């Protein structure tokens, strides 16, 4: 079976959707040279009418995409840097995501916001390394953060076909990850449906994005001590609360590993919902970035602000003991 990388999966999903539906087009910066490689080969394949090179004008082209979507197109906007999603935060959350409601259902805004570069970039500094996915969930924007090439393919296809705005976070740290896939098996994956990567009995570890690999490694490492279930929600919003509840029904213990900032982040939301509504036999724990984590530009310092496997090991042991 061919090995498909996460990056290639994005390229393939986007290309397949463009073949399938002529209303799908891509816009963004450095499109003509496919700087991120997500659209490698597309200019030749689909032409400049469907691969739109944009000026350095993110708010303008985000609103532009909203207009094109209301006029029947399915824009996919590629953003190169996480903070660009902060720059267009109002245009996505307060405009694109509300126009359907405001029109009483007359229109919909099927735009996909694709960030194939989510997370920390060593030494790129404070302004380039945020993980804003929790805030899109807070604002009710459909948001996904797939961990594997197969899930990346399936959720990007779904995001593009969805009639509402969807933000797709692809972790920098995952782009090179490869997976054996039978291309025939690649298909859309529904929003809000998590995936149990590993079945376990003693504790549920929830992880997303590139941290799923860390969770699986730790589960292996601790296999002798405990049976760890690894649950990847895959979608940040809507969230697979039923899937989480099913897992906790069995394990009753919860540790979350989440790359977003601690305060009001997804990790906290998972702990809160579990504590309020689900079975927990011991206090849950989360491993996140610190509150309002701001990285500088020195890798040593910044690495100290990222969640680690050691922290996960300690948290799992703690939760098992209590």
């Amino acid at each position, binding site marked *: 079976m061919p090995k498909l990388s996460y990056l290639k999966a994005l390229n393939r999903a986007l290309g397949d959707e463009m073949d399938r539906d002529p209303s799908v087009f891509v816009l963004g910066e450095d499109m003509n040279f496919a700087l991120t490689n997500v659209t490698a080969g597309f200019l030749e394949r689909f032409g400049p*009418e469907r691969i739109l090179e944009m*000026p350095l*004008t993110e*708010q*303008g*082209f*985000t*609103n*532009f*995409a*909203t*207009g*094109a*979507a*209301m*006029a*029947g*197109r399915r*824009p996919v906007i590629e953003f190169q840097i996480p903070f660009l999603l902060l720059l267009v935060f*109002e*245009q996505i959350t*307060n*405009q694109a995501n509300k*126009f*359907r*409601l*405001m*029109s*009483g*259902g*007359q*229109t*919909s805004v*099927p735009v996909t916001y694709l960030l194939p570069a989510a997370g920390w970039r060593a030494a790129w500094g404070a302004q380039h390394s945020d993980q804003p996915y929790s805030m899109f969930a807070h604002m*009710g924007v*459909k948001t996904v953060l797939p961990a594997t090439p197969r899930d990346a393919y399936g959720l990007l296809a779904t995001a593009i076909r*969805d*009639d*509402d705005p969807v933000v797709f976070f692809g972790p920098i740290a995952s782009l090179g990850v490869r997976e054996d896939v039978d291309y025939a098996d690649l298909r859309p994956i529904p929003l*809000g449906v998590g995936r149990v990567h590993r079945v376990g009995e003693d504790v549920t570890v929830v992880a997303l994005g590139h941290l799923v690999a860390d969770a699986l490694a730790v589960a292996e490492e601790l296999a002798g001590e405990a049976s760890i279930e690894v649950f990847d929600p895959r979608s940040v919003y*809507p969230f697979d*609360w039923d899937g989480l509840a099913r897992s906790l029904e069995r394990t009753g213990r919860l540790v979350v590993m989440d790359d977003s900032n601690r305060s009001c982040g997804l990790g906290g939301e998972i702990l809160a*919902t579990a504590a*309020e*509504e689900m079975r927990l036999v011991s206090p849950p724990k989360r491993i996140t970035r610190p509150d309002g984590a701001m990285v500088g530009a020195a890798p040593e310092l910044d690495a100290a602000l990222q969640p680690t496997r050691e922290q996960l090991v300690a948290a799992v042991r703690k939760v098992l003991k209590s």
Partner: protein
Amino acid sequence: MTELSSSLYHKIRFIRRFEERSVDLVAAGEIASGVHPCIGQEAVGVGVCSTLTHDDVVLSSHRGHGHLLAKGCDPARVMAEMCGRVTGIDKGRGGSFHPSDFSANVYNSTGTVGHGAAIAAGVAWAIQRSGSSRVVVSFFGDGAVTQGSLLEGFNLAALWQLPVVYVCENNKYATTLPVRTAVAGTITGRGAAFGIPSATVDGQDVEVVRAAAASAVARARTGGGPSLLEFDTYRYFGHHTFELKTRLKYRSDAEIASWQLRDPLDIQAARVSSPVRALIDASVEVELDSVVAFAVGSARPDPVDAFEYMYSDGLRPRAGVA
């Protein structure tokens, strides 16, 4: 052209009285949001929209009732929308400030001042690429020209020579802010900077407005690209009905009076014989009686429907209590 003259008079008269009725309905508590009346500016919306076909698209603003009526929306359903009734054009989800009516190709009226310009560019791009000759008109005020996103929209429209007519209703104030203290340089100079044909035109004489709009619309329809029309106009009423309570003194009575000397209603009335005018005026009152009756007589929405129309797939957000 007395045919045309009287029909333009009819529309202006209708909008003037519609606005006056809506102010009454605010006082009566039927329009909870209050309104931004366009009284004094009617000639702009009427003149511009008189050059458009049903298929042409309008993006309106917070002061949009006149645009909607001039574009052909059902007045009864517009008023019902303002009253938050389920029979409204947006089923009570858009309200007076941010309505849309796709049955008349009014795509929306975003609350983010100035941001409609780039949305309009996106609609125009999609229309142009679909091979249609439809035109997009984007209405905004003088306050919008200091919003960077508006200029980002200008750049995109100019780069790709999109079929958009940018209509700036310069009514001299953004809420209490005099345009001369807010806008360095000129408004038309901002269009010229992007190579967009730009002109300042009398906005009080509807036939002058119509002539200017006709050539801009013709340019857009025939592939000549975007235009910017700055219409000199004035609102006789306050920014919003809240000014009935808060007695803001940001302009002199003399200034208001001087503009009333060029009331668009009087200017056009002078072109219509008094018997015809009498018939029109009477018919307007009759129609508005039924408009108001329909609006206030319509059902209010049921609170259980609060989640309706938020998402295309019927996704139901979690309630605020578990």
